[in-house]
């Protein structure tokens, strides 16, 4: 069984046959839908059994209409949240009339619209006045998917079947009754003890969303709700096109690269051409790498949502997020390239790379027309670093996904230095801390502070990456895949790239293991440490235009060193950081900046 993914991605019909709704009512309905999405997401956080959901919030809720168009989305990680529409569309077509009140569906298969196997889409239909009107959808990242490797990321397996259990779509509840046989089968194919608890949290959230939406339909009537959904999708499309119309016509290209795949095949190439034609925008990935022996594949659904979420970040944040974005973007992704893999390719790590490079490429292309906010809303990590061992406190084996706080990859935008821990598009993730994870896993986090000089220089500075040191208190093994060493996060509008990644396992021992591409269960003894220098964010604008006072402040705050101020910003300081007597040597700064400007003429030509 296979789905035509590009056909699933095409625009879907509107709901209403021309019924009207006043703008205030439409806005009230939209607000209610966003609130319901939020309540569904919180429901998962409060009821799920594993930390990835009940601590880290890796769950996304959305409301779709009966045709699988986004009506409203709320909290979540945009590039994941926006990947829940294709599985819903596939389900609607697959089941046809066999969709009933009280049904709850599950889908995770990347070849039927999903992102990758760990991302479970669970959704429930909402009926009113005898017809199906809406779909409440909740998406969660599960800590295990079956397959041969714990943790859901098998980065070296040759096909999707080795990655774990594929579910194109199935009913986990049938007309209000949980399907015990189905849940037991799913649980039998999963290592995680908390798996069923997480899945039931998700099913409960879908039920809750359906019930709440039922109340909205009862209050306003199906005709009014349908007209409202049409009106705000249409409004988003119109507002988006108004922005595109302000961009100069032309084709804007960008090329970005992933260092290597987990087999060390080098330089995976993403090419994009963004064509602006009046108020129309076409995003075309023709020319992207299609080497068949690669091990880096982003599913079509994943590519599609990374494109839309990056473009949403570049346009006005006030535009309500819904199907209007997808309807206003023409997307071309040739089948067989790494962004639309041939059937059966493994994709678990592809949501990360080359998935994030989709956002990066789109940002770099559109930076040529709308540089102010064209900040790649991505990361350059590889996959989470997984540590597996046996915890002597419990006698049980543990899988630590290193889902902890660590800064990285957060770029500056015009007028705002990179800040916090990560890009805005991860703002809903709530990362675990030392006090949480040291209580759960047998390790100690010695350091995770910002790393001086790792933020990309610019008129606005990229955020520094973390210097992250973790000691294991028991013997364990480490599994990971690292990129961003050769190709770090780029700067925008003359800004410089952030510092690259570097991961050393058994750091400080006489047998250190510096990760070149993957760590395939590298053993560590109790008391040994990993040291991960996470990459910095990119700068925005020419660093020689940065206000010298801001550079001095950065040095006092140790985001930038005294040497870095001179080298990267042309700012000469006198006095001592230790004694807090630093001051700007204005004359020397002016002279140095002049020399550096002269030296950079012709750079990049």
């Amino acid at each position, binding site marked *: 069984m296979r789905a035509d993914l590009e056909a699933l991605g095409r625009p879907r019909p*509107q709901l209403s*046959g*021309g019924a009207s*709704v*006043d*703008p*205030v009512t*439409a*806005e009230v309905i939209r607000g209610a839908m966003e609130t319901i999405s939020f309540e569904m997401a919180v429901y998962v956080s409060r009821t799920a059994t594993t930390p990835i959901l009940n601590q880290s919030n890796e769950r996304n809720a959305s409301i779709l209409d009966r045709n699988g168009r986004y009506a409203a989305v709320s*909290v*979540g*990680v*945009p590039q994941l949240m926006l990947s829940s529409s294709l599985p819903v569309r596939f389900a609607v077509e697959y089941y046809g009339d066999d969709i009933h009140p009280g049904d709850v569906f599950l889908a995770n298969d990347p070849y039927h619209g999903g992102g990758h196997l760990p991302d479970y889409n669970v959704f429930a239909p909402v009926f009113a006045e005898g017809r199906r009107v809406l779909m409440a959808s909740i998406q969660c990242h599960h800590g295990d998917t079956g397959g041969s490797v714990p943790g859901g990321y098998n980065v070296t397996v040759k096909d999707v079947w080795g990655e774990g259990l594929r579910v194109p779509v199935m009913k986990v509840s049938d007309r209000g009754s949980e399907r015990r046989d189905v849940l037991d089968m799913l649980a039998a194919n999963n290592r995680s003890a908390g798996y069923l608890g997480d899945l039931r949290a998700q099913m409960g959230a879908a039920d809750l969303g359906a019930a709440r939406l039922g109340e909205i339909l009862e209050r306003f009537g199906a005709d009014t709700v349908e*007209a409202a959904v*049409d*009106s705000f999708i*249409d*409004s988003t499309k119109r*507002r988006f096109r*108004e922005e595109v119309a302000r961009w100069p016509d032309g084709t804007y290209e960008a090329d970005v690269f992933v260092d290597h795949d987990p087999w060390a095949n080098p330089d995976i190439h993403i090419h994009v051409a963004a064509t602006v034609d009046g108020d129309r925008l076409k995003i075309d990935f023709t020319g992207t790498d299609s080497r068949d022996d690669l091990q880096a594949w982003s599913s079509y659904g994943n590519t599609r949502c990374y494109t839309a979420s990056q473009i949403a*970040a570049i346009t006005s*944040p*006030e*535009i*309500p997020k819904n199907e209007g974005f997808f309807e206003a973007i023409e997307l071309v992704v040739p089948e067989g390239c790494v962004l639309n893999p041939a059937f059966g390719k493994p994709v678990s790590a592809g949501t990360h790379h080359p998935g994030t490079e989709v956002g990066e490429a789109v940002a770099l292309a559109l930076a040529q027309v709308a540089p*102010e*906010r064209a*900040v790649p809303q991505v990361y350059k990590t590889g996959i989470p670093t997984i540590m597996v061992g046996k915890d002597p406190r419990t006698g049980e084996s543990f899988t630590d996904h290193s889902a902890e*706080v660590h800064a990285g990859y957060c*770029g500056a*935008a015009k007028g*705002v230095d990179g*800040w*916090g*821990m*990560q890009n*805005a*598009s*991860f*703002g*809903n993730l*709530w*990362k*675990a*801390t*030392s*006090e*949480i994870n040291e*209580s759960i896993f047998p390790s*100690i*986090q*010695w*350091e*995770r*502070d*910002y790393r001086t000089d790792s933020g990309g220089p610019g008129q606005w500075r990229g955020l520094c990456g973390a210097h992250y*040191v973790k000691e294991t208190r028991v013997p364990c093994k480490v599994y990971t895949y690292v990129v961003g060493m050769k190709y770090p996060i780029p700067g925008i509008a003359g800004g410089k790239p952030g510092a690259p990644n570097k991961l050393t396992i058994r750091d400080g021992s006489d047998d250190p293991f510096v990760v070149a591409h993957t760590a395939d269960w590298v053993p560590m003894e109790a008391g040994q440490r990993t040291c991960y220098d996470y990459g910095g964010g990119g700068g925005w604008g020419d660093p020689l235009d940065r206000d010298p006072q801001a550079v001095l402040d950065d040095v006092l*705050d*140790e985001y930038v060193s005294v040497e870095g101020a001179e080298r990267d910003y042309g700012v000469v300081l006198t006095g001592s950081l230790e004694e*807090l007597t630093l001051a700007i040597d204005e004359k020397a700064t002016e002279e140095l900046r002049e020399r550096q400007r002269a030296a950079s003429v012709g750079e990049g030509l």
Partner: protein
Amino acid sequence: MGTRVGIDVGGTFTDLIYVTSDGEVVLDKTPTTPDDQSTGVMTGLGQLADRFGVSLSEFCAGLDIVVHGTTTADNTMIEMNGSPTGLLTTKGHRDEIELRRGFKEQIWDPAFPPPSPIARRRARIAIPERLDFEGEVVQPLDEDAVRRGVQRLRTLGARSIAVVFLFSFVNPAHERRAAEIIREEFPDVENISLSHEVMPRGPEFERTSTTLVNAYVAPRIASYVTHLQEKLRATGFGGPLLIMQSTGGVMPPDYVSRRAVTLLASGPTGGVMGSALAASRAGVSDFVTMDMGGTSFDVCLVRDDKPEIKTDWNWRYRYYIGLPMVDVESVGAGGGSIARVSQGTLLVGPESAGSQPGPVCYGRGGTRPRSPTPTRCSAISPPKVSQPGE
């Protein structure tokens, strides 16, 4: 039951409620005096005394208790003009307050700015020390580093110091010892906020945020409350002065500096608690309280006579407050909030017209409609919404 006065200092008015010994209720109000809120409080008490034809001293001497809600903590955070504050924290964890566990309020806006810092990175001092999750010492406290850190903070101009060590809520020994050293090195420090006292639980971001806010607002509140108490004592008031907390309870003035952070939303919380009491007497158990001011509209859900208490996700002024708070939801849509149309969507607030010149309906030169007016005046017409088929 003796005589009682409740005083709520709001942004515009200072409201007073006087309850006599036989249960009679007298209300009064006077303009708030932002420079020194106690001036308005004493004026209000004077007005009450006048009503009964007695002197302020006689009136105050006859009071058994004064309960006070104040906006001092909120104003400090709105204006970000608290005490210059430094942080001593476990080495390797100096940046928790900036990292914020990854949270940003806007997930779609790469240009969304960071919160105003309470302690910039230079004022966050890394101290070598470490406990594990059971409170066992993995690395002893480096006392010299604490001394050097305190001296550095003095040089930077800090007046208040927060101390946050990992797992101090399991074993507070290192934080307590650091406090002793701070007192030796910096005898006139205005406030020392120890994380295990302010918020005795994990995780460290929440505790750091809460402790920093406490250290930042405590000196100003403590000095205000002390000042008010002195003024009341000078009039002959001999009873207890109690300060309204965001938990719905009250606390004595000498407790304020340790838990100043619980004075955030002190005023609105008092309104909720009073409403709950009044409604309960009227036989109503389930209801919503509403408090409409000039710039905000405060709402709280009360079920079974009990206001909702929220124990997590309490963000105030972009800082996480990891303590229970009465769940007063505040939206920026008060009586003076400006209504506008943005790209075809009708929006209200959070910008407020204020009182001068005020919204268009005041007729004093304002040009923009406030929240209730769009339906009554034709300052705007409904935006056109495209319909299918257009």
